[in-house]
């Protein structure tokens, strides 16, 4: 059975940007078509002159690029998903580059991360540049750190791969997760409080995800925004933060401890 997705998106401007009277440099977009979920989340680089523009641009392009590729319907096999995410990732980098040139901006001015997630049934495909993260939940409530932030060893805090010129070409993964019931996609502003580390290596999704996913069952669409802007989160991070929670109707009712 292919379920539909219930999505709750939240974001808040970090204290540093708020104090500087600057807006958040995060951006996100969500689409769902016939049970296929498409989420794009981006974090414009604070060091870039127009990082927020870059983030907004890349999530728009991601929706455009991957919606085109999904027009004939989602792939049915691993090879098809791999081809889709590889082609889409390459095309997104190219289009971002072209758009930056069309805007007559120095490319570095638009520097941004991006995390794109496609999900249909048990299939999940991810294309990511930078330090976003993706967590999957199964019907039993077990969490899987599907896309971890890059290992922090030897890396300056805040430094990561960025569009338009990621040295690693972006990370791509395809997974088949029977029992998939939820996905969480976030920017690095939240990783320190949602991801558990062993030394500087991210190892697992934190316990908070259990209750976070439960927020999708609330009638309050602003619950996540309030949480991210609230004192508890602001007390732990000064960075912009964005979190997308998506729960599949195919698995939601079976998750223990939620109602």
């Amino acid at each position, binding site marked *: 059975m292919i379920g539909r997705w219930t999505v709750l998106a939240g974001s808040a*401007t*970090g*204290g*540093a940007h*708020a*104090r*500087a009277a600057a807006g958040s440099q995060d951006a996100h977009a969500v689409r769902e078509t016939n049970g296929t979920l498409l989420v794009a989340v981006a974090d414009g680089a*604070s060091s870039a002159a127009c990082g927020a523009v870059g983030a907004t641009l890349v999530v728009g392009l991601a929706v455009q690029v991957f919606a085109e590729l999904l027009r004939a319907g989602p792939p049915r096999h691993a090879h098809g998903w791999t081809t889709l995410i590889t082609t889409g990732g390459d095309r997104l980098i190219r289009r971002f580059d072209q758009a930056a040139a069309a805007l007559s901006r120095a490319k570095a001015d638009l520097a941004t991360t991006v995390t794109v997630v496609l999900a249909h049934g048990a299939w999940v495909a991810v294309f990511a540049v930078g330090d976003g993260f993706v967590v999957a939940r199964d019907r039993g409530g077990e969490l899987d750190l599907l896309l971890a932030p890059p290992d*922090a*060893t*030897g*890396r*300056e*805090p*805040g430094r990561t791969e960025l569009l338009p010129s990621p040295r690693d070409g972006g990370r791509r993964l395809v997974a088949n997760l029977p029992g998939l019931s939820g996905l969480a996609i976030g920017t690095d502003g939240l990783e*320190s*409080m*949602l*991801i*558990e*580390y062993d*030394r*500087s*290596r*991210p190892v697992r999704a*934190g*316990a*908070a995800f259990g*209750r*976070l996913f439960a*927020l999708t069952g609330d009638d309050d669409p*602003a*619950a996540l*925004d*309030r*949480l991210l*802007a*609230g*004192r*508890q*989160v*602001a*007390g*732990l*991070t*000064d*960075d912009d933060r964005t979190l997308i929670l998506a729960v599949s109707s195919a698995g939601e009712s079976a998750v223990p401890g939620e109602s």
Partner: protein
Amino acid sequence: MQFEEIFGDDEEPDEFDFVIDTHRRRFVGLLIDTSRSMALAQTGGMAAIDALNLHLAEWLPKVRAEGRGQLRDVEFVVITFGAGGVAVASGNRKPSARDDGAFVPAARLTLGPLEAGGATPMVEAVDLALDLVEQRRRHVQEVHGQQCGGPRLILITDGEPTDFEGNPTDEWRRLAVRLQQSRETGRLMLFAFGVPGVKDDVMRELAGEEGYFRLQDLDLKRVLDLALVATAEHVGYRRVADKFEDGF
């Protein structure tokens, strides 16, 4: 924008079980001038050193509270220069970058009462701080495998650099070159706060134009509040300058 401005009186959701451990460390060296002039200068009807101790007693709980939140990845080393020469005032009070040495997590930062006296061996104090933060960075990376951010030094002084006998010294010129090299490679931020009695031209050479903040009066509470701002993660010279110009 504050929470209330966005959401009015709506309550935020209950406490969540967020991860509060950190895989990152940042090192902040707080360098405090405790030379003889701090005993002689008066502010608010008391010696400057007494005022400093009074304000530190109010400031330290703020630091410890932030140490459970946004400053949870910060370790402090506090170094005084003046009474007793150059001395480590934090941790085990020894110039050691090893665990349980001079560096203390913000959540556990305490200081005993500071005493004033002697000369102003500022250069030796800054050199020691630079050496210790670099040793600590290596230790944390190699032994604990944790990610380390660029260190910050916060210098509070009312004087000019001297040798241990109180004689003016040009050693600060060598230090200025060392500091400039550290700044240019983006590895260090130095915030220098000068109160009356300070030698402005020397401080500008040491901290650079953007890193030097000259107060017109001996407002040590304000200095400590600005020092706390300068300790925050996403704060640079511009942000401290904005606070400074706003009269924070």
